[in-house]
Protein backbone atom coordinates (compact mmCIF):
# COMPACT_ATOMS: atom_id res chain seq x y z
CA UNK A 1 0.00 0.00 0.00
CA UNK A 2 1.21 3.42 -0.95
CA UNK A 3 0.75 4.99 2.47
CA UNK A 4 2.99 2.58 4.35
CA UNK A 5 6.09 3.46 2.35
CA UNK A 6 7.10 6.46 4.45
CA UNK A 7 8.68 5.22 7.67
CA UNK A 8 6.90 6.38 10.79
CA UNK A 9 9.80 5.70 13.13
CA UNK A 10 13.06 7.54 13.25
CA UNK A 11 15.75 5.45 11.53
CA UNK A 12 18.44 4.14 13.86
CA UNK A 13 21.99 2.84 13.44
CA UNK A 14 25.43 4.17 12.63
CA UNK A 15 24.58 5.69 9.24
CA UNK A 16 21.38 7.21 10.63
CA UNK A 17 23.47 9.26 13.06
CA UNK A 18 25.44 10.97 10.30
CA UNK A 19 24.52 14.44 9.12
CA UNK A 20 21.92 14.27 6.28
CA UNK A 21 23.55 16.85 4.03
CA UNK A 22 26.97 15.21 4.27
CA UNK A 23 25.33 11.87 3.48
CA UNK A 24 23.89 13.41 0.31
CA UNK A 25 27.30 14.79 -0.58
CA UNK A 26 28.81 11.34 -0.07
CA UNK A 27 26.39 9.79 -2.59
CA UNK A 28 27.07 12.51 -5.14
CA UNK A 29 30.72 11.45 -5.63
CA UNK A 30 30.13 7.95 -7.04
CA UNK A 31 27.06 9.20 -8.94
CA UNK A 32 29.08 11.87 -10.78
CA UNK A 33 31.86 9.42 -11.66
CA UNK A 34 29.39 6.82 -12.91
CA UNK A 35 27.42 9.27 -15.03
CA UNK A 36 30.49 9.69 -17.26
CA UNK A 37 31.66 6.07 -17.22
CA UNK A 38 30.28 3.36 -19.52
CA UNK A 39 32.49 0.39 -18.68
CA UNK A 40 31.80 -2.62 -16.50
CA UNK A 41 34.69 -2.31 -14.03
CA UNK A 42 34.04 1.15 -12.51
CA UNK A 43 30.43 0.46 -11.43
CA UNK A 44 31.38 -3.09 -10.37
CA UNK A 45 33.94 -1.71 -7.90
CA UNK A 46 31.55 0.91 -6.53
CA UNK A 47 28.68 -1.57 -6.13
CA UNK A 48 31.01 -4.08 -4.49
CA UNK A 49 32.38 -1.54 -2.00
CA UNK A 50 28.85 -0.34 -1.18
CA UNK A 51 27.73 -3.91 -0.50
CA UNK A 52 30.78 -4.57 1.69
CA UNK A 53 30.07 -1.35 3.61
CA UNK A 54 26.41 -2.30 4.14
CA UNK A 55 26.77 -4.14 7.48
CA UNK A 56 28.66 -1.17 8.93
CA UNK A 57 25.73 1.13 8.18
CA UNK A 58 23.56 -0.79 10.68
CA UNK A 59 20.39 -0.39 8.69
CA UNK A 60 17.19 -2.22 9.35
CA UNK A 61 16.92 -4.84 6.62
CA UNK A 62 13.20 -4.37 6.05
CA UNK A 63 13.57 -0.66 5.41
CA UNK A 64 16.48 -1.23 3.08
CA UNK A 65 14.58 -3.86 1.10
CA UNK A 66 11.60 -1.52 0.81
CA UNK A 67 13.92 1.12 -0.62
CA UNK A 68 15.88 -1.12 -3.02
CA UNK A 69 13.11 -3.36 -4.37
CA UNK A 70 12.05 -0.90 -7.06
CA UNK A 71 15.64 0.07 -7.80
CA UNK A 72 16.56 -3.53 -8.61
CA UNK A 73 13.56 -3.81 -10.93
CA UNK A 74 14.65 -0.64 -12.75
CA UNK A 75 18.24 -1.75 -13.00
CA UNK A 76 17.28 -5.04 -14.64
CA UNK A 77 14.94 -3.25 -17.08
CA UNK A 78 17.58 -0.72 -18.08
CA UNK A 79 20.12 -3.51 -18.64
CA UNK A 80 17.72 -5.57 -20.76
CA UNK A 81 16.49 -2.78 -23.05
CA UNK A 82 20.03 -1.56 -23.66
CA UNK A 83 21.16 -5.08 -24.49
CA UNK A 84 18.19 -5.67 -26.77
CA UNK A 85 18.13 -2.38 -28.68
CA UNK A 86 21.87 -1.66 -28.85
CA UNK A 87 23.20 0.43 -31.74
CA UNK A 88 26.30 -1.70 -32.21
CA UNK A 89 25.44 -5.36 -31.78
CA UNK A 90 28.74 -7.24 -31.93
CA UNK A 91 30.09 -10.68 -31.03
CA UNK A 92 28.15 -13.90 -31.21
CA UNK A 93 24.39 -13.67 -31.85
CA UNK A 94 22.34 -15.05 -28.98
CA UNK A 95 18.83 -14.06 -30.03
CA UNK A 96 17.19 -12.40 -33.05
CA UNK A 97 13.49 -11.62 -32.83
CA UNK A 98 12.18 -8.74 -34.95
CA UNK A 99 13.95 -5.53 -33.86
CA UNK A 100 15.68 -7.30 -30.96
CA UNK A 101 19.27 -8.36 -31.57
CA UNK A 102 20.92 -9.83 -28.54
CA UNK A 103 24.64 -10.56 -28.94
CA UNK A 104 27.47 -11.22 -26.52
CA UNK A 105 28.62 -7.65 -27.18
CA UNK A 106 25.24 -6.07 -26.49
CA UNK A 107 24.72 -8.28 -23.45
CA UNK A 108 28.03 -7.01 -22.08
CA UNK A 109 26.97 -3.41 -22.76
CA UNK A 110 23.60 -4.04 -21.12
CA UNK A 111 25.24 -5.47 -18.01
CA UNK A 112 27.55 -2.44 -17.80
CA UNK A 113 24.62 -0.02 -18.02
CA UNK A 114 22.67 -2.00 -15.43
CA UNK A 115 25.60 -1.99 -12.98
CA UNK A 116 26.05 1.73 -13.60
CA UNK A 117 22.41 2.38 -12.77
CA UNK A 118 22.77 0.25 -9.63
CA UNK A 119 25.94 2.07 -8.58
CA UNK A 120 24.12 5.41 -8.83
CA UNK A 121 20.90 4.30 -7.17
CA UNK A 122 22.15 2.03 -4.37
CA UNK A 123 24.04 4.63 -2.27
CA UNK A 124 21.02 6.90 -2.62
CA UNK A 125 18.76 4.16 -1.32
CA UNK A 126 21.05 3.75 1.69
CA UNK A 127 20.82 7.44 2.49
CA UNK A 128 17.04 7.40 2.14
CA UNK A 129 16.67 4.37 4.38
CA UNK A 130 18.83 5.99 7.06
CA UNK A 131 17.55 9.58 6.98
CA UNK A 132 14.58 11.07 8.78
CA UNK A 133 12.84 13.74 6.66
CA UNK A 134 12.75 16.16 9.62
CA UNK A 135 16.51 15.75 10.14
CA UNK A 136 17.05 16.38 6.45
CA UNK A 137 14.99 19.59 6.54
CA UNK A 138 16.84 20.76 9.68
CA UNK A 139 20.16 20.00 8.07
CA UNK A 140 19.27 21.74 4.81
CA UNK A 141 18.38 24.87 6.79
CA UNK A 142 21.31 24.75 9.20
CA UNK A 143 24.13 23.54 6.98
CA UNK A 144 23.11 24.65 3.48
CA UNK A 145 21.19 27.81 4.54
CA UNK A 146 18.12 26.75 2.55
CA UNK A 147 15.34 29.22 3.50
CA UNK A 148 13.18 27.79 6.32
CA UNK A 149 10.08 28.76 4.34
CA UNK A 150 10.95 26.23 1.63
CA UNK A 151 12.37 23.49 3.84
CA UNK A 152 9.54 23.38 6.40
CA UNK A 153 6.83 24.37 3.92
CA UNK A 154 7.72 21.29 1.89
CA UNK A 155 8.05 19.12 4.99
CA UNK A 156 4.57 20.16 6.14
CA UNK A 157 3.16 19.30 2.71
CA UNK A 158 4.80 15.89 2.88
CA UNK A 159 2.70 15.12 5.96
CA UNK A 160 -0.36 15.13 3.69
CA UNK A 161 0.97 12.29 1.51
CA UNK A 162 -0.89 9.40 3.20
CA UNK A 163 -4.07 11.48 3.29
CA UNK A 164 -3.86 12.35 -0.40
CA UNK A 165 -3.09 8.73 -1.30
CA UNK A 166 -6.24 7.69 0.53
CA UNK A 167 -8.26 10.43 -1.13
CA UNK A 168 -7.05 9.33 -4.56
CA UNK A 169 -8.77 5.98 -3.96
CA UNK A 170 -11.92 7.63 -2.60
CA UNK A 171 -12.07 9.85 -5.69
CA UNK A 172 -11.80 6.73 -7.87
CA UNK A 173 -14.66 5.10 -5.94
CA UNK A 174 -16.75 8.26 -6.19
CA UNK A 175 -16.47 8.19 -9.97
CA UNK A 176 -17.61 4.59 -10.09
CA UNK A 177 -20.51 5.50 -7.80
CA UNK A 178 -21.55 8.21 -10.26
CA UNK A 179 -21.67 5.63 -13.05
CA UNK A 180 -18.32 6.26 -14.72
CA UNK A 181 -15.71 3.63 -15.47
CA UNK A 182 -13.21 3.10 -18.26
CA UNK A 183 -14.42 -0.30 -19.40
CA UNK A 184 -11.96 -1.42 -22.08
CA UNK A 185 -11.59 1.91 -23.85
CA UNK A 186 -8.14 3.50 -23.42
CA UNK A 187 -9.58 6.91 -24.37
CA UNK A 188 -12.13 6.70 -21.57
CA UNK A 189 -9.41 5.44 -19.22
CA UNK A 190 -7.29 8.51 -20.04
CA UNK A 191 -10.24 10.89 -19.56
CA UNK A 192 -11.15 9.23 -16.28
CA UNK A 193 -7.55 9.50 -15.13
CA UNK A 194 -7.41 13.22 -15.92
CA UNK A 195 -10.69 13.75 -14.12
CA UNK A 196 -9.18 12.06 -11.06
CA UNK A 197 -6.05 14.22 -11.32
CA UNK A 198 -8.31 17.26 -11.32
CA UNK A 199 -10.20 15.95 -8.30
CA UNK A 200 -7.07 15.33 -6.26
CA UNK A 201 -5.69 18.76 -7.21
CA UNK A 202 -8.78 20.56 -5.92
CA UNK A 203 -8.48 18.72 -2.62
CA UNK A 204 -4.71 19.28 -2.45
CA UNK A 205 -4.89 23.02 -3.13
CA UNK A 206 -7.68 23.53 -0.58
CA UNK A 207 -5.73 21.69 2.07
CA UNK A 208 -2.50 23.46 1.12
CA UNK A 209 -4.15 26.85 1.50
CA UNK A 210 -5.53 25.93 4.92
CA UNK A 211 -2.20 24.49 6.04
CA UNK A 212 -0.42 27.70 5.02
CA UNK A 213 -2.96 29.72 7.04
CA UNK A 214 -2.36 27.55 10.11
CA UNK A 215 1.43 27.93 9.69
CA UNK A 216 1.26 31.71 9.35
CA UNK A 217 -1.09 31.87 12.32
CA UNK A 218 1.74 30.34 14.31
CA UNK A 219 4.12 33.03 13.09
CA UNK A 220 5.86 31.16 10.25
CA UNK A 221 6.00 34.35 8.16
CA UNK A 222 6.80 36.64 11.10
CA UNK A 223 10.14 37.60 9.60
CA UNK A 224 11.87 37.07 12.98
CA UNK A 225 15.10 35.11 12.95
CA UNK A 226 13.95 31.53 13.69
CA UNK A 227 15.50 29.66 16.57
CA UNK A 228 16.27 25.95 16.26
CA UNK A 229 14.74 23.42 18.62
CA UNK A 230 16.80 20.63 17.06
CA UNK A 231 20.49 21.01 16.17
CA UNK A 232 22.15 19.25 13.26
CA UNK A 233 25.95 19.23 13.46
CA UNK A 234 28.74 18.24 11.11
CA UNK A 235 31.39 16.25 12.98
CA UNK A 236 34.69 14.57 12.15
CA UNK A 237 32.88 11.32 11.31
CA UNK A 238 30.75 13.16 8.71
CA UNK A 239 33.78 14.67 7.02
CA UNK A 240 35.47 11.29 7.04
CA UNK A 241 32.38 9.79 5.37
CA UNK A 242 32.50 12.28 2.49
CA UNK A 243 36.25 11.89 2.03
CA UNK A 244 35.94 8.11 1.95
CA UNK A 245 33.20 8.29 -0.67
CA UNK A 246 35.28 10.60 -2.88
CA UNK A 247 38.32 8.35 -2.46
CA UNK A 248 36.35 5.23 -3.43
CA UNK A 249 34.88 6.91 -6.51
CA UNK A 250 38.28 8.11 -7.72
CA UNK A 251 39.91 4.78 -6.94
CA UNK A 252 37.27 2.98 -8.98
CA UNK A 253 38.03 5.07 -12.07
CA UNK A 254 41.79 4.78 -11.62
CA UNK A 255 41.69 0.99 -11.21
CA UNK A 256 39.41 0.69 -14.21
CA UNK A 257 41.77 2.84 -16.30
CA UNK A 258 44.79 0.90 -15.05
CA UNK A 259 43.37 -2.42 -16.26
CA UNK A 260 42.46 -0.74 -19.55
CA UNK A 261 38.69 -1.08 -19.11
CA UNK A 262 37.58 2.52 -18.51
CA UNK A 263 35.35 3.90 -21.24
CA UNK A 264 34.09 7.46 -20.90
CA UNK A 265 30.56 8.25 -22.06
CA UNK A 266 30.33 9.19 -25.73
CA UNK A 267 26.76 9.61 -26.91
CA UNK A 268 25.46 8.07 -30.13
Amino acid sequence: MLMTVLPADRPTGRLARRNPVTKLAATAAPALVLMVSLDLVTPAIIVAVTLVALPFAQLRLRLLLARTRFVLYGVVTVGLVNAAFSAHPSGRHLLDVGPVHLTTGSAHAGAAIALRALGIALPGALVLASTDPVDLADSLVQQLRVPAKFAYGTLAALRLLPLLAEEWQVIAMARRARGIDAGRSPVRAARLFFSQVFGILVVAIRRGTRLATAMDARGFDSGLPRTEARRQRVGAADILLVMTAVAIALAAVLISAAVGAWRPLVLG
Partner: protein
Amino acid sequence: MQDLKFNPRPRVRRGWRTVDVVVAAVVSVAFGVVFWAWSQLYTATSPAFSSIPPVQGLMVGMWLVPGVLGGLILRRPGAALFCEFVASIVEMLLGNQWGTTNMLYGFFEGLAPELLFALFLYRRWNLPVALLAGGAAGVADFCLDWFYAYPTYSIAWLTAYGAAVLLSCVVIAGAGSWVLARALAVTGVLSVFSSGREQAAV
Protein backbone atom coordinates in the same frame (compact mmCIF):
# COMPACT_ATOMS: atom_id res chain seq x y z
CA MET B 1 6.80 34.73 28.92
CA GLN B 2 9.19 37.61 28.33
CA ASP B 3 11.26 35.52 25.96
CA LEU B 4 8.64 35.71 23.19
CA LYS B 5 8.69 38.76 20.99
CA PHE B 6 5.19 40.06 20.42
CA ASN B 7 5.63 43.45 18.95
CA PRO B 8 7.94 43.59 15.97
CA ARG B 9 5.89 44.52 12.95
CA PRO B 10 6.13 41.65 10.48
CA ARG B 11 7.79 43.07 7.42
CA VAL B 12 6.00 43.15 4.08
CA ARG B 13 7.42 40.32 2.03
CA ARG B 14 8.34 40.20 -1.58
CA GLY B 15 8.79 36.91 -3.36
CA TRP B 16 7.18 33.71 -2.17
CA ARG B 17 4.49 33.78 0.50
CA THR B 18 3.94 30.79 2.79
CA VAL B 19 0.83 29.90 0.81
CA ASP B 20 2.86 29.84 -2.41
CA VAL B 21 5.40 27.42 -0.99
CA VAL B 22 2.90 25.16 0.73
CA VAL B 23 0.39 24.94 -2.13
CA ALA B 24 3.20 24.31 -4.61
CA ALA B 25 4.54 21.57 -2.34
CA VAL B 26 1.13 20.00 -1.71
CA VAL B 27 0.42 19.97 -5.45
CA SER B 28 3.77 18.24 -5.92
CA VAL B 29 2.91 15.72 -3.21
CA ALA B 30 -0.41 15.05 -4.95
CA PHE B 31 1.53 14.37 -8.14
CA GLY B 32 3.68 11.88 -6.25
CA VAL B 33 0.42 9.95 -5.82
CA VAL B 34 -0.61 10.59 -9.43
CA PHE B 35 2.72 9.26 -10.76
CA TRP B 36 2.33 6.17 -8.67
CA ALA B 37 -1.15 5.52 -10.08
CA TRP B 38 -0.03 6.37 -13.63
CA SER B 39 2.84 3.86 -13.56
CA GLN B 40 0.41 1.26 -12.15
CA LEU B 41 -1.95 2.01 -15.01
CA TYR B 42 0.54 1.29 -17.72
CA THR B 43 2.51 -1.53 -16.18
CA ALA B 44 -0.88 -3.14 -15.60
CA THR B 45 -1.78 -2.95 -19.29
CA SER B 46 1.25 -4.95 -20.42
CA PRO B 47 4.74 -5.04 -18.91
CA ALA B 48 6.39 -6.32 -22.08
CA PHE B 49 4.69 -3.77 -24.29
CA SER B 50 5.41 -0.85 -21.99
CA SER B 51 9.12 -1.69 -21.87
CA ILE B 52 9.50 -0.94 -25.59
CA PRO B 53 11.01 2.58 -25.47
CA PRO B 54 8.93 4.43 -28.08
CA VAL B 55 5.73 3.20 -26.43
CA GLN B 56 7.10 4.18 -23.05
CA GLY B 57 7.84 7.57 -24.54
CA LEU B 58 4.14 8.21 -25.14
CA MET B 59 3.49 7.93 -21.41
CA VAL B 60 6.26 10.31 -20.34
CA GLY B 61 4.20 13.50 -20.51
CA MET B 62 2.37 12.84 -17.24
CA TRP B 63 5.67 13.03 -15.34
CA LEU B 64 6.23 16.54 -16.63
CA VAL B 65 2.84 18.01 -15.69
CA PRO B 66 3.81 19.40 -12.22
CA GLY B 67 6.46 21.76 -13.60
CA VAL B 68 4.27 23.30 -16.29
CA LEU B 69 1.16 23.31 -14.08
CA GLY B 70 3.09 24.78 -11.11
CA GLY B 71 4.22 27.65 -13.32
CA LEU B 72 0.71 28.26 -14.66
CA ILE B 73 -0.88 28.26 -11.17
CA LEU B 74 1.68 30.24 -9.18
CA ARG B 75 2.97 32.50 -11.96
CA ARG B 76 6.16 33.09 -10.05
CA PRO B 77 9.82 32.72 -10.92
CA GLY B 78 11.00 29.33 -9.67
CA ALA B 79 7.54 27.72 -9.41
CA ALA B 80 8.01 25.31 -12.32
CA LEU B 81 11.41 24.18 -11.09
CA PHE B 82 10.23 23.84 -7.48
CA CYS B 83 7.11 21.80 -8.29
CA GLU B 84 8.78 19.38 -10.67
CA PHE B 85 11.75 18.91 -8.33
CA VAL B 86 9.62 18.29 -5.22
CA ALA B 87 7.31 15.93 -7.15
CA SER B 88 10.36 13.90 -8.18
CA ILE B 89 11.53 13.71 -4.57
CA VAL B 90 8.10 12.52 -3.43
CA GLU B 91 8.05 9.91 -6.17
CA MET B 92 11.47 8.75 -5.03
CA LEU B 93 10.29 8.52 -1.41
CA LEU B 94 7.37 6.38 -2.51
CA GLY B 95 9.87 4.09 -4.18
CA ASN B 96 10.47 3.89 -7.91
CA GLN B 97 13.06 2.25 -10.06
CA TRP B 98 15.20 5.33 -10.58
CA GLY B 99 16.10 5.95 -6.94
CA THR B 100 18.04 9.14 -6.35
CA THR B 101 18.50 9.64 -10.11
CA ASN B 102 14.91 10.75 -10.00
CA MET B 103 15.94 14.02 -8.31
CA LEU B 104 18.34 14.76 -11.14
CA TYR B 105 15.57 14.17 -13.68
CA GLY B 106 13.19 16.31 -11.65
CA PHE B 107 15.66 19.17 -11.52
CA PHE B 108 16.27 19.35 -15.25
CA GLU B 109 12.68 18.59 -16.21
CA GLY B 110 11.65 21.53 -14.03
CA LEU B 111 14.46 23.79 -15.18
CA ALA B 112 13.43 23.49 -18.85
CA PRO B 113 9.86 24.88 -18.50
CA GLU B 114 11.20 27.38 -15.97
CA LEU B 115 13.58 28.82 -18.58
CA LEU B 116 10.78 28.83 -21.11
CA PHE B 117 8.52 30.85 -18.79
CA ALA B 118 11.48 33.15 -18.07
CA LEU B 119 11.92 33.68 -21.79
CA PHE B 120 8.46 35.24 -21.77
CA LEU B 121 9.48 37.30 -18.70
CA TYR B 122 6.85 35.48 -16.56
CA ARG B 123 4.15 37.53 -18.29
CA ARG B 124 2.59 35.09 -20.75
CA TRP B 125 0.59 32.15 -19.44
CA ASN B 126 -1.51 31.24 -22.47
CA LEU B 127 -1.90 27.96 -24.35
CA PRO B 128 1.00 28.41 -26.82
CA VAL B 129 3.40 29.14 -23.95
CA ALA B 130 2.09 26.10 -22.06
CA LEU B 131 2.64 23.91 -25.15
CA LEU B 132 6.17 25.24 -25.54
CA ALA B 133 6.89 24.68 -21.85
CA GLY B 134 5.67 21.09 -22.16
CA GLY B 135 7.87 20.64 -25.22
CA ALA B 136 10.89 22.11 -23.43
CA ALA B 137 10.40 19.72 -20.53
CA GLY B 138 10.17 16.90 -23.06
CA VAL B 139 13.50 17.85 -24.66
CA ALA B 140 15.13 17.85 -21.21
CA ASP B 141 13.65 14.45 -20.43
CA PHE B 142 14.81 13.01 -23.73
CA CYS B 143 18.38 14.23 -23.21
CA LEU B 144 18.49 12.75 -19.71
CA ASP B 145 17.14 9.40 -20.91
CA TRP B 146 19.65 9.32 -23.71
CA PHE B 147 22.44 10.12 -21.30
CA TYR B 148 21.43 7.89 -18.44
CA ALA B 149 19.18 5.07 -19.57
CA TYR B 150 19.71 4.46 -23.28
CA PRO B 151 23.28 5.48 -24.14
CA THR B 152 23.80 2.46 -26.44
CA TYR B 153 20.69 3.02 -28.55
CA SER B 154 20.73 3.11 -32.31
CA ILE B 155 19.78 6.38 -34.02
CA ALA B 156 16.56 4.85 -35.35
CA TRP B 157 15.37 3.87 -31.90
CA LEU B 158 16.40 7.22 -30.44
CA THR B 159 14.49 9.11 -33.12
CA ALA B 160 11.35 7.09 -32.59
CA TYR B 161 11.65 7.47 -28.84
CA GLY B 162 12.38 11.20 -29.02
CA ALA B 163 9.37 11.85 -31.27
CA ALA B 164 7.11 9.92 -28.90
CA VAL B 165 8.42 11.84 -25.87
CA LEU B 166 7.99 15.21 -27.53
CA LEU B 167 4.46 14.46 -28.69
CA SER B 168 3.49 13.16 -25.27
CA CYS B 169 4.95 16.16 -23.47
CA VAL B 170 3.34 18.76 -25.71
CA VAL B 171 -0.06 17.08 -25.40
CA ILE B 172 -0.12 15.85 -21.79
CA ALA B 173 2.26 18.24 -20.03
CA GLY B 174 1.53 21.27 -22.23
CA ALA B 175 -2.14 21.15 -23.19
CA GLY B 176 -3.07 18.99 -20.19
CA SER B 177 -1.60 21.44 -17.68
CA TRP B 178 -3.29 24.36 -19.37
CA VAL B 179 -6.68 22.64 -19.25
CA LEU B 180 -6.15 21.69 -15.58
CA ALA B 181 -5.11 25.22 -14.60
CA ARG B 182 -8.20 26.70 -16.27
CA ALA B 183 -10.54 24.16 -14.69
CA LEU B 184 -9.00 24.80 -11.25
CA ALA B 185 -9.36 28.58 -11.60
CA VAL B 186 -13.11 28.20 -12.22
CA THR B 187 -13.59 26.26 -8.96
CA GLY B 188 -12.32 29.15 -6.86
CA VAL B 189 -9.55 27.20 -5.12
CA LEU B 190 -6.94 29.44 -6.73
CA SER B 191 -8.42 32.67 -5.39
CA VAL B 192 -5.27 33.53 -3.41
CA PHE B 193 -3.21 33.39 -6.64
CA SER B 194 -3.27 35.81 -9.51
CA SER B 195 -4.08 32.90 -11.86
CA GLY B 196 -7.36 32.41 -9.99
CA ARG B 197 -8.43 36.04 -9.97
CA GLU B 198 -8.62 36.72 -13.66
CA GLN B 199 -12.38 36.38 -13.94
CA ALA B 200 -14.63 39.35 -13.48
CA ALA B 201 -15.96 40.14 -10.01
CA VAL B 202 -18.92 37.98 -9.00
